[in-house]
């Protein structure tokens, strides 16, 4: 019996950031019946994010494993937790105002956001496949609901149902993959799989490989690898814009957290992996970029652009090694800043009545709101990878890691792709500054919370471009443990 007591007393610190979020979510759900207290929901959520961030920082370099080995706390996971928290905090700040204006502000949203982040943290905080699967579900189910959150919008409904069906479908494949891995290794714990790797390969190679393939598919779905990406444009376009901003960063980071762990720490000895990732990375960035060229809706364009960015990050999966992993982490942090920033601007613009974020609606905002469009331009430059924004460095690290490892053609294709992408990012700038606009430009009201988001993201985009040192050191320091 003492056994159980010790489990509880020691191990809770490993999941402290998750517990804070859970408590906050429960608190918000309790407040729902009290109509007058509803306005507190976003505040509680924001405070919870901050507290959780603080606790997660406290876990830095604290490596340990608990709950019978099912929770593994290492700097790698903590780094990703911080990314999730940052992304969701920024999305939260964007969301509130938008929901109020659209008349869909409900406290449950914040609870769902918190739950979703818990799911991501669970994914990043373990080396056990089954726990990863559960984390994935805890993350995804709120995402399905959030996509459909604007219930009266047909687009939003459709986004929800499409995301749900494709997500559940992908989960089934993932589960089958886990079953195969389990059949091959008798366990789903990576430490044990890695320890017995040669034995497993010798005896159960085909199960292991089939399982790996299906796991690749299951998590590849979440990070939108071509050809498992088809849901992305529709869901991103249909979901409420702040939610889309969240989608484009946090779940993707969670997917990459798991993939980097599995494929670079666990299964890196499967020599077939590099080649398939090579093909998938090239496909993903090329298809994303080419499709983005032809979009007339900014959200949909950004959806394809996020596919392309997943392709860039996948270079790390091809290359492997500490440098590539830290480059991927660097890129994800950088991407969080400028992509959420871009979505923040799109959100603000969408608060104008009747706005659906089509390209034509950008016309004239350069004159109407010069500062806002300047910030938008900054984010577009960062997405396109112009120096001295952090977008450039992210790409630079990734590509130079590829070149260093001898994947020159991969880097060439990546660079070519990022040049193609310049075209559609600049189209945003061109439309906002140069396209003629008839009539009175609609007034856009900045609220403090969104203003804060813009400041944080813009400073992050430029500041990390000038001083990438700290972040780089952080992402390198985050590598060192895998229990």
């Amino acid at each position: 019996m003492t056994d159980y007591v010790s489990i509880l007393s020691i191990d809770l610190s490993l999941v402290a950031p998750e517990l804070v979020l859970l408590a906050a979510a429960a608190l918000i759900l309790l407040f729902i019946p009290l109509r007058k207290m509803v306005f507190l929901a976003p505040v509680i959520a924001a405070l919870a994010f901050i507290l959780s961030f603080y606790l997660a920082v406290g876990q830095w370099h604290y490596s340990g494993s608990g709950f019978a080995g099912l929770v593994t706390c290492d700097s790698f996971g903590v780094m990703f937790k911080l990314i999730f928290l940052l992304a969701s905090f920024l999305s939260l700040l964007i969301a509130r105002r938008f929901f109020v204006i659209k008349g869909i502000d409900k406290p449950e949203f914040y609870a769902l956001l918190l739950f979703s982040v818990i799911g991501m943290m669970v994914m990043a905080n373990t080396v056990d496949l089954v726990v990863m699967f559960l984390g994935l579900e805890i993350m995804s189910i709120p995402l399905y609901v959030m996509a459909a959150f604007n219930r009266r919008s047909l687009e939003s409904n459709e986004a929800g149902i499409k995301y749900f069906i494709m997500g559940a479908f992908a989960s089934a494949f993932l589960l089958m993959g886990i079953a195969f891995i389990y059949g091959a290794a008798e366990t789903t714990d990576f430490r044990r799989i890695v320890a017995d790797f040669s034995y497993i390969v010798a005896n159960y190679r085909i199960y292991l490989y089939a399982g790996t393939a299906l796991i690749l598919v299951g998590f590849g779905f979440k990070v939108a690898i071509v050809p498992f990406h088809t849901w992305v444009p529709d869901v991103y376009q249909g979901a409420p814009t702040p939610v889309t901003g969240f989608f484009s960063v946090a779940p993707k980071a969670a997917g990459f957290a798991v993939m980097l762990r599995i494929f670079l720490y666990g299964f890196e000895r499967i020599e077939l992996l590099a080649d398939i990732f090579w093909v998938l990375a090239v496909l993903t960035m090329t298809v994303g970029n080419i499709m983005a060229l032809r979009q007339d809706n900014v959200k949909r364009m950004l959806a394809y652009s996020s596919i392309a960015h997943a392709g860039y990050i996948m270079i790390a999966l091809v290359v492997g090694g500490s440098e590539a992993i830290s480059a991927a982490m660097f890129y994800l942090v950088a991407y969080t800043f400028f992509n959420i920033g871009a979505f923040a601007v799109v959100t603000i613009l969408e608060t104008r009545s009747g706005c659906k974020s089509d390209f034509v609606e950008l016309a004239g905002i350069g004159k109407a709101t010069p500062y806002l469009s300047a910030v938008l331009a900054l984010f577009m430059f960062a997405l396109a990878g112009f120096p001295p924004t952090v977008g450039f460095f992210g790409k630079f690290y990734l590509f130079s890691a590829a070149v260093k490892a001898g994947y020159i053609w991969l880097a060439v294709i990546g660079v070519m792709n990022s040049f193609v992408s310049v075209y559609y990012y600049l189209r945003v700038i061109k439309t906002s500054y140069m396209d003629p606009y008839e009539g009175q430009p609609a007034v856009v009201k900045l609220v403090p919370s969104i203003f804060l988001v813009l400041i944080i993201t813009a400073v992050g985009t430029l500041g990390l471009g000038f001083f990438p040192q700290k972040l780089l050191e952080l992402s390198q320091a985050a590598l060192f443990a895998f229990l």
Partner: protein
Amino acid sequence: MVPISAYLILAAVLFGIGTIGVLITRNVIVIFMSIELMLNAANLALIAFSRGMNVLDGHVFVFLVLTVAAAEAAVGLAMIVLIFRNRETINIDRFSIMKW
């Protein structure tokens, strides 16, 4: 006397039927049930493996997956109800406002 691989093959066949169901039916509810069938096929495989190796972990996984299936069912059905209210159809092909 039945070999374990017979169960596994049955699981694969059920999984495939589920896949066919998702691909060819237009009724969202049936698609959804097909996905449930796929999850069950995976469960069957897990239990078969578990029995083959005489390790109980697989049973726990199945237990957990059943919860996941229940959670997905709750949200998925709610979503179907929502979209049916707005669109009065459950034909998945009709849900294609956004494309290209």
